[in-house]
């Protein structure tokens, strides 16, 4: 990839306009120099086009999509500007804690710890870099390139850290890939101890699960993602719509369609490949309901 400076050479007037926008908002925290701003843009462009050779139009589109106001603030905080830090605190600190509370499902202690650690890292790294004054300063703000809002980036970091902490602490539970086989075995084993006298119960459950897994794998990624958000992550339709960039009514419609399609695929697989009759397929469903009880009414009323 050509150097960032070279890439930005042809966009001087565009950079001027972006700088004016950034300067307008930067007046709230003492301003930002053009050099600082251009350096931030260079870092951003380098990160974006690290593995490719963009055209001039690509760079122009990318520059226009940047949240330059937030980039200016992050850049000023990175340079340990006192007024920028004050502005950052007044604007983002309370949001950071609110987001942490939401992420930690209102566990106050966990939320405070999560937010404090990020806030401390942002604040401490930025300031210690300027105090040391040796070598290149490394700040968490180096990783913010203006492709998103600063608030979203902060929440993404919180989310990532929270999930990784949970996963690390639950390493022995069923989050890892190796657990999948164990769960399947457990299902099969428990089936043999079920109250039903049908010796094929375990087989039916296994067939149904495998057919469902195959049908899920064959879904378009977006449909699969939507289902996963709804059933596994238990998000609301509004949240799903927000993630996928669609209205919640659209998300609901697509979910219904996907569920119907999934069921059709599963039953087709059970009939055609496994030679099960309609009665046997009904049995599969009944055994599945016993094995994995799902209170649909409760789930819908809590979520939607």
């Amino acid at each position: 990839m050509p150097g960032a400076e070279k890439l930005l050479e042809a966009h001087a007037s565009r950079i001027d306009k972006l700088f004016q926008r950034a300067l307008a908002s930067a007046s709230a925290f003492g301003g930002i120099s053009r050099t600082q701003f251009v350096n931030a843009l260079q870092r951003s462009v380098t990160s974006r086009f690290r593995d490719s050779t963009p055209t001039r139009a690509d760079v122009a589109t990318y520059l226009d999509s940047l949240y330059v106001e937030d980039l200016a603030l992050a850049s000023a905080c990175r340079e340990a500007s006192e007024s920028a830090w004050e502005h950052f605190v007044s604007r983002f600190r309370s949001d950071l804690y609110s987001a942490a509370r939401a992420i930690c499902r209102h566990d106050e202690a966990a939320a405070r710890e999560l937010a404090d650690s990020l806030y401390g890292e942002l604040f401490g790294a930025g300031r210690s870099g300027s105090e040391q004054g040796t070598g290149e300063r490394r700040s968490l703000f180096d990783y913010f390139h203006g492709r998103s809002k600063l608030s979203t980036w902060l929440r993404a970091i919180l989310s990532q850290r929270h999930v990784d902490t949970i996963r690390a602490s639950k390493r022995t539970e069923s989050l890892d890939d190796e657990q999948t086989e164990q769960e399947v075995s457990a299902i099969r084993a428990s089936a043999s101890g079920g109250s039903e006298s049908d010796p094929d119960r375990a087989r039916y459950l296994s067939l149904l699960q495998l057919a469902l897994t195959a049908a899920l794998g064959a879904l378009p990624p977006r449909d699969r993602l939507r289902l996963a958000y709804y059933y596994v992550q238990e998000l609301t339709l509004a949240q799903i719509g927000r993630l996928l960039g669609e209205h919640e009514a659209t998300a609901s419609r697509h979910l219904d369609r996907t569920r119907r399609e999934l069921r059709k695929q599963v039953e087709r697989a059970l009939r055609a490949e496994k030679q099960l009759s309609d009665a046997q397929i009904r049995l599969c469903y009944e055994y599945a309901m016993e094995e994995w009880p799902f209170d649909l009414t409760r789930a819908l009323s809590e979520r939607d």
Partner: protein
Amino acid sequence: MADEQKPDKAMAGMLKHKSVWPLASTGEVCPDAATLAAYFDRSLTAAEISQCELHFSACLRCQEQLAALARSEPALVATPAVEKKPMISWLWDWRWMAPVGAAVVALVFFVSYKTIYVPSGPPRGEELMAKRKTATPVPAAAEQQKSAVSIPGRSETAADAGAETKSLSVPRKEKTRSELDELQRKNVAVASESARVAQTLKDKGVRSTAGASGSVTGRAMPKPAEEEKQFAAAENRVIAQPMAPAVSGAIPPGAQAAPAQGAAEGILGAQKQDRAITVADTKAPAATAPPEGKAQEQAALKKESAAGRQDAAGARFALEAGRPSASKLRTAPVELIVMAPNSKVLWRFGSAGRIEHSRDAGKTWETQISPVQESFLSGSAPSESICWVGGSNGVLLRTTDGGENWERIPAPTKGDIISVKASDQLNVTLIGADGRTYETRDAGAHWRAR
């Protein structure tokens, strides 16, 4: 349980278990926080989004991170919880309220139409003429000088107001016939005042634009053709008719037509009319003494009606917020136009979320991408690149790049937003249809009600 529901319940139960889900191969690297954030803000390219979603659909870790990100979204977190149903919840069941409500509305319209709009007594126009004669006098001329009808004159007012632009609209609520009639009467009073001022200006050698009929808001209502004709004719007569001898010394020569105090800084335009903003010219028609007697009056009015109709074909100006013109209520749905301080940059908001932008004072328009399909009710453009607009159902949009990108801002209310006043991209004050005022200083991250 119905047989049909069993398979769905069974599938739902299975889908909740991670074991049924195909997983990503361990070689794939999860996107970093910056990419997740850009994905969430829809800043990635279409190709990047597809690539990410392919990974996300099979990666539990990424799904969990995105779910946490969605939960922490202020707009979604701040959404009020499911409203508590009232004690007698069955009373608020839409399944019976909707048809009953529709029947009641239809009955009200039918009764109103029969009792109010059945013609009786003198023709509508003469009735309006009679009412106009008893209309209240024009406010002090000095106050009229404060405001300008034409756009160039507005800049000083805008500068005084802190370069803040206000748009005009009223909530798009359906009005009953009786409300329309009341508005008509008010409009007649305003029109008569404006006509008197217009006459005064003519006497002084200044010609005003056609906005003198009063502010324009509200929604068009259907009207029988016969009454429409009579009313239109009466309106033209009302617009053109001089009210009283010219107000001496009221308007300086060359001043723009100034209908009333607090002239709006925004404009509402008819859908089908030419939106070019006309500037009052200084052509001096021959001054005429106000005609006396009905016959002379009508003769003078006939003369003026031609000019009045011509003027009426131009842009109509909103002169005072919230004072609708009955004629406007009979035309197509009104659009919302918001003007930036430089008077050249305009945004026009139409139905179903339509947004248009002009850089040349309305001569040409370009459509901009709107993220919503709601109707807009009020807007404010503190600069050429920043514009806020509020609409029905709590819709609140903001642009900071001249409209190239419009983002939805979480609003403090789910009801209609009937007034928006912004001083920059962070500070804005809203008034909801419930009458409450809300302020933010951080672009909607936090709201304070007052």
